[in-house]
Every structure is written in C-alpha cells, then in structure tokens.
C-alpha cells in the first residue's frame, strides 16, 4: 500500500531541495553588507519602541486556536461519515445528527459567551 506515496515522498525531498538550493544561491550571490543600523528592527524609521516586540498578545488569539482545534476534531469525525452516509442509511444520519446537535450546543454556548466577538 505504499506505492502511491512514493511520489509524495520524492516530492517532499525535491521541494525541500529546491527551497534549500534557492536560498543557497541567494546567499551566495546576494551582496552582504550588514551594518548595525541595517540590522536594527524596522519600525517606521523610529528606533524600536519601548517594550519587547515579542510582548504578550491578546488572549483572543488563543481562543481562536482552541476553537479551531476542537472544531477541527469534530470535522474530522465527519469525513468518514460523509463518505459512508448512503451506506450507513438512516442510522448513520441519526447518529451524526446527535453528534452535530452537541456540536451546535457547544457552538451556541461559545457564541453566547462572546468568544466569537473580536472587538
């Protein structure tokens, strides 16, 4: 069962090689004249402002990622079901609708809690 994957693996290697070579060529051929001024962070021509750039960011981003993760898992459960729906018949439909119902409950909860507001 490996055979269709061989080209994929070859592709991975080739893409990586391509990327490496291109960057390598660029390293080789690009002029390189680093000065402290040049290497300093760009911030609209101003010396970088107070505070580390990697400061702490809004928790909102975390909430997005969590919701993404959990919904992604739910979606994953739907793929086999979708493919099989016609074979599973009514039972499959009911099963998934129950599953979806819980999902919708979760979704509504999240919505009501305001986690979907980004203002």
């Amino acid at each position, binding site marked *: 069962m490996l055979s269709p994957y061989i080209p994929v693996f070859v592709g*991975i290697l*080739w*893409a990586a090689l391509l990327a490496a070579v291109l960057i390598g060529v*660029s390293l080789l051929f690009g002029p390189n004249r680093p000065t402290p001024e040049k290497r300093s962070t760009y911030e609209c021509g101003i010396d970088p402002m107070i505070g580390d750039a990697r400061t702490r960011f809004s928790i909102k981003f975390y909430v997005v990622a969590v919701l*993404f993760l959990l*919904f992604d898992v739910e979606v994953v459960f739907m793929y086999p079901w979708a493919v099989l729906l016609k074979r599973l018949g009514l039972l499959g439909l009911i099963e998934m*609708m129950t599953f979806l119902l819980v999902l919708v409950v979760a979704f509504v909860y999240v919505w009501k809690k305001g986690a*979907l507001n980004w203002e």
Partner: protein
Amino acid sequence: MWIDYLVWTVQNLLFPVVVPVVLLTGVILAVWIERRGAGFIQDRVGPNRVTLFGFRNAGLMQPIADALKLLVKEEFIPEKADRFLFFLAPTLSMIPALLTFMVIPFGDVLVLGKYRIPLQVADLNVGLLFIFAISSLGVYGIVLGGWSADNKYSILGGLRSSAQMISYEISMGLAIIGILIVFESVRLNDIVRMQGDLLFGFLPRWGIVVQPLGFLLFFVAALAETNRIPFDLPEAEAEIVAGYHLEYSSFKFSMFFMAEYVNMMVASGFIVSLFLGGWQIPWLPTEALVAHVGPILTAVLQVAAFAVKLWFIMWVFVWVRWTLPRFRYDQLMGLGWRVMLPLALANIFVTSVVPFVLGVY
C-alpha cells in the same frame, strides 16, 4: 521490462519533480496575469517595458526579472531574529504549497495498452484529506516567519494571518462535507470522474451544480486561506506595513510570495476538481473521447480543459482582488465563525437530510 521501469520512473520520479517546476512556472504566468490584468482593469497598460534581446515581449519577462532580482538581492537577517527559524519559515510555507498539488488529477488515467498512467502525481485514496492535512501545515511558515523576525508588525501579521487561516480552515472542511456525501469518496480522481455524469440528462453533475452553497463557502474560504483580498489582512500594507514578511529580503521574501501564488493555484485546482468537474470536458466522457481521438489526444484535451478551468478560477481571484476592499480583522473573524460556519452546518444538514426525506435512498 525496460518499459515497466520507464513507466515507474515517470510516475514516481518524473511527475513529482516536474509538477513543482510547472507550478513555479505557473507563478510567473500568474504574476503576469495579475499585473497586466490589473492594468487593463484600471485603464492602464501594466508592465510592458522589460526588454530582452531587444524584444518587449509584453512584459512577460517582468516576473522573471523580479524573481532573478530577488535572488541576487542582499540576504538579510535582523539582529534580534532567531536565525534558524528565520530561514526555516519561508521554506515551511513553500513546501506544503508545492506538495498539495500532488494529489490533484489533471487528467483521466491514461491507458496505453497494458499500462495505466494516472495523470496525477499521487493517486491517494485519501487525496482530499491529504490536501487539508498538508495545507494546514502552511500556517507554520507564516507564524514562525512573523515570530522569528522579532518585529512588532511581523508578529502581529503572523498571528493575525494564522488566526485567519485556521478559522477558515474549519469552514473549508465543513464546506466539502456536502461534496463527500454526494460523491461518496475522498479520492479526488473518483470525485472528478463522477462529475462526468449528467443530471436530468443534460446538466453535468458538477459539484457547483449539486452543491452551490458549498461552492460559495469553499470559494470564500479559499480566498481567505490564500490571503487574498478581501482577506489579505496579514499583509495589509496600510495597517501593518508588510505583515509577517516585513523583515524578509531577497529570496526568502520571494518564497513567501511564490507560496502565495502556488497556494492560489492549488486552491484553484482544488476548486476545479471538486466543483467544476476537474479535467472533465462537459458532455464528453473519457470513453467517448478515447474512441474518437485516441488516448493521447484525449489526455491532452483533458489536461487542457483542466488548465482552462484552473486559470479561470485564478483569474477570478485576481479579479476579486482588484474590485473589493478588505475586511477588518474582527469582521473577518466574525464572517468566518458566525456566518460561514453556521451556513456550512446548514449545508451539511440539508445535503444529508433531504435525500432521506425525498426517499432517494
């Protein structure tokens, strides 16, 4: 037999090597179309002065000049950057982009005597999921690229961008459930093949016909996934300068840039395969074609049909870009979560329940 080896080599070594190269060439064409198209939309002409050996070649050399120029531009690493990740990030955004095209079929299986050559790099039985899985890795290039440069704008751009991409990934995943229900497979070539059927005897059973809402949702999500206007927030110049690739120069920048276009092509190929009948030429099934024009010409015609559709979608991407304003971050997230997601769920509900109600099976 040597011919066996030849077929094996073509399938396993030649295709995976050639397809990325074709894609990268496609980027050149895409950039050219984008820039000339924008010109003509805006009552101007677009790049046309680049001269090679005294020929003006309508600006076709423009993207090549750009790429070459970037290749020989100074390689630059910001002082506070995390060097390793700084180099890794563009590679990370490029590789998944090139890989995902591997499972998209650009023609029916070419039958030459006893040899069957699928016109597709890898005919995976989970092809569709493969695209999702690999493209979900594209996020790392952006996130790490933004983070490693240690610049506020880039980090903001990287975070924004990744939040946007993952949000729309959900809608994207849900949008195709309907297609799966209808076509009962995750193997892309099967899906395409089934779109050759006719509905009511005359209408090609394309995904867009059986899943119009799914198509719309998928298209919008694809725009968002490829960071195109109206979803180009991560690099919204007006707000955060150049976003996550702000500190990138030379070819590393170029790789982000190319990854965007390759992603567009992948998205277009994906849309075409799922919703626009892939390599199918409407009303002309493979068997009929083979019977009339022979296998080779059939393959050529089918690849051509695929290419035409793909470039049409690409053009729509460009066209949309030059027409619409961009969303604000919160509106974009709101659209993704509060509009697209419920709609996609509704789409699934309708697609799965209606046949039962109608007693189709």
